[in-house]
């Protein structure tokens, strides 16, 4: 499984540029480069950090137990009704996303657009309602860049429901759609079987993004 992990990471890294090229070909709106560049000097959010005592407790509550060396770990930013079910899924929440990413070092970060909808701790990050929460999401992606953790953004709701995420998604390594037409035009598909949203998406299917270059005529 360690090999699988290496393969996943390698595939995601390999496929990301081609997916970006693909998107720029099919979408008029993809001409803007990602705004977050590795090494860019981030500004801090006003209001100060979380109380250290509280942060310590929250991290302790969230870090998964030690995993076997051959098991891949998926970091997941999702709605509570999110669909990916894997043995080694690490749910990530706004207050602790950065320290948890740094501590647990998942093999890949998956962000569902629906995480920004109501009924989620990430609610408001897709609109003007909660810029701080959008910022938390950006910080998560920035952290993954720094730690070389591949990021996958998955459009599972229409962009107009979470308009602020359009540009955030552009900063991820891979952007996919759960259904045709979600996100921008003709994104590669990473669907789930149950449109209601509670069918498991297995890790094997997730790592299937390695096949994206062949989907929908995109890629090289």
């Amino acid at each position, binding site marked *: 499984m360690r090999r699988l992990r290496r393969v996943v990471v390698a595939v995601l890294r390999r496929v990301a540029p081609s997916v970006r090229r693909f998107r720029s070909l099919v979408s008029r709106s993809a001409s803007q480069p990602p705004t977050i560049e590795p090494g860019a000097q981030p*500004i801090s959010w006003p*209001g100060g950090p979380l109380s250290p005592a509280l942060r310590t407790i929250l991290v302790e509550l969230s870090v998964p137990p030690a995993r076997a060396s051959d098991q891949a770990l998926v970091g997941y930013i999702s709605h509570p009704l999110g669909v990916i079910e894997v043995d080694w899924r690490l749910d990530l*929440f706004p207050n602790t996303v950065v320290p948890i990413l740094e501590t647990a070092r998942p093999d890949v970060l998956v962000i569902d657009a629906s995480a920004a909808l*109501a009924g989620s*701790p990430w609610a*408001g990050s897709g609109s003007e309602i*909660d*810029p701080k929460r959008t910022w938390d999401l950006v910080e998560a992606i920035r952290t993954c860049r720094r730690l070389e953790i591949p990021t996958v953004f998955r459009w599972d709701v*229409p962009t107009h429901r979470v308009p602020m995420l359009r540009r955030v998604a552009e900063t991820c390594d891979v952007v996919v759609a759960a259904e045709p037409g979600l996100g921008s035009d003709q994104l590669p598909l990473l669907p789930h079987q149950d449109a209601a949203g509670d069918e498991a998406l297995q890790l094997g299917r997730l790592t299937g993004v390695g096949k994206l270059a062949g989907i929908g005529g995109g890629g090289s």
Partner: protein
Amino acid sequence: MTEARVSVVVYSPANMNAIDGSSVWVQTVTLALAEVPTVDVSLLLSHEVVSGRLLDPLISHPGVNVVDPFSEGWKRGLTSLSVDEAAGILAGKLPADVVVVRGSAAARRLANEPSLQGKLWPYLTDIPQHVLDLDAASRDLFREVMAASPLILCQTEELRTFLEGCHPEVAGKGWLLPPTIPEGVQPNHLSAPSKTDLRLCYSGKFARLWNTYEMCDLPARLSERGIDAGLTMVGDKINRDPDRPEYVGKMKSRLEKSPGVDWVGGVSRERSIELMSQAHVGLSWRSPELDDSLELSTKLLEYCAAGTPPLLNRTEMHERVFGSDYPLFVSTEEDVIDSLVDLAGDPDLYATALRSISDIARAYTLESTAARLASLVDGQFPHVLRDPDPEFDVEVGGEAPDLVEALNRSPTLSVRHEPTNAGDHHVIRIRARPTSSDAGSHHLVYLPFGGDGADSPGTNDTIVVPGSSTKRQLVSGFDVDAERVVTIPEPVDEADTQRAKTGNARFHIAWFVSASTGSGEIEQVAELIGQLRRHDPRLILFLADDGIDDYSSLLRSGLLELLEQAGPGGVVFEGRPFGLSGWLRKIGFVISFQADPDSRTATAMASGAVPVILREPEEESWYGDRWSHGSIAGMADHVISLARDGTAWSRDSESARVEAAAIFGRDAVAERWLSLIRTLA
């Protein structure tokens, strides 16, 4: 400041000789300010006058003073005024109580002018409107501009919420000033379009993201579907596109040569609206890249005023304005074609679209903008509304800005605030003296935090506390005569809280804590959130504090147990939300375990968050009985039932909003204070 008048100068570097968004805004805001009875308005021009298209209505308006620094001889040589020169004029030759300034560079320069401190009302659009664009420079901009500005004008609720959520300096200072359509526009009632007659219109700039290039294809593409369509293109400004240098030439060629397209060029705003009214459909279909815009297109509103339903992208903002069932939302070019084909063959669909837009324009008239500005001026300059012969002179000693704001709402009170003339901490001393008699002053002591200052009052002073449990505490704990204690709630700025909730806010529960929140309350919340989360994982507790640096004591008091009860993701720590009213837009419930509302809980209720209160049935409270529960299970049942039923939640939300305004609103609280002072007199 002249007596009971407020002088306002409008300034923008925009060229009033050209018609664009900035200059049109300057014109309409100036005209709206001229309609405010208590305002004297001047417009400081920044360019020499060469065209009267926008300026003539201002120059001929008896209520507007157009100040032309070129004809005044204040400016020689070049044909435009620099911002530095404008700052000099505003600081010297043209003094004002308020300077309405548009544009971030201009606002920043004026903010550094000592004599303009506290006088700026900035309106900024050239600012970051996405967190990815925030940088140190934008932070500095807001820090500097807001230090000199008591408020900031925002075109939409979306922009206000965003700015207040990003910049602590803006929090609580955002004022809505929606776009304005000209006066006198009457909708033109055309017969429904048909396959042989479909008239389209676009008015505005020509730019890549505005899809104007693609629009020129529409008549030809519709012709392929059997529709005889014509498109009138209005405007003369073709934006350059740095990524596509050939864009300007190609766009111009399209406008000139596309079959079925009639390019009329640049015209006056009135003529533009007239051309819109001669079309069946207005085009406002844009690139999805603009879907996260926080601004509302004035053109959209002009289409509505002209009686021409616009075709536009589906966004949350557009759904708020047009309704989610508006039939002409589109996203792709294929959607546009399909919608127009449908419209040409279905008169009922056209009638539905017309009905949808019939009332929209009314909220954006010059009259409604003037009313907003009048309310703003009245709030900022309470003396303009004050009765020339006030009933009482009132002096408020101590840090009580909210109370002073509320008392200022009463025209018969002449209020003087002496923040440094305080007694002990948390003790507000109030002296009220009737102006019509020689009777002496009446002394009151306001204790917003109850017993903290209970030993301070003089023997005969009337004591005011915010609630009955505070009163009980005072009477039993400090041996104060109950007859001397009056309850008046803390005031809430209900106007600021009137902001639309987000969809499905009913899954979000607010709880306000402080470092002194006790273990008993934390245990109760743990039990409550545990019950709620077991029922529905979408019920999230958003915990806001009042600036706690160290949560150690709360963790020792049971917060850890609460986190475990809530489970992963069940609690989000928000710190101290610096844009409280904006933050409350996502909150559907507020929980409290105190019979006396604290100001944040009352503010949440005024915003439409349904209060869920645990209190003994016999306990007196400002909260109505319908919001109160005798047990945690009762609280949980209530939340669960409303979370399940969006209609029921909306009904209760509106009731909470109305009830809170009637009890905690500034006018209501001012009325209680006035009654009390009269009683004492």
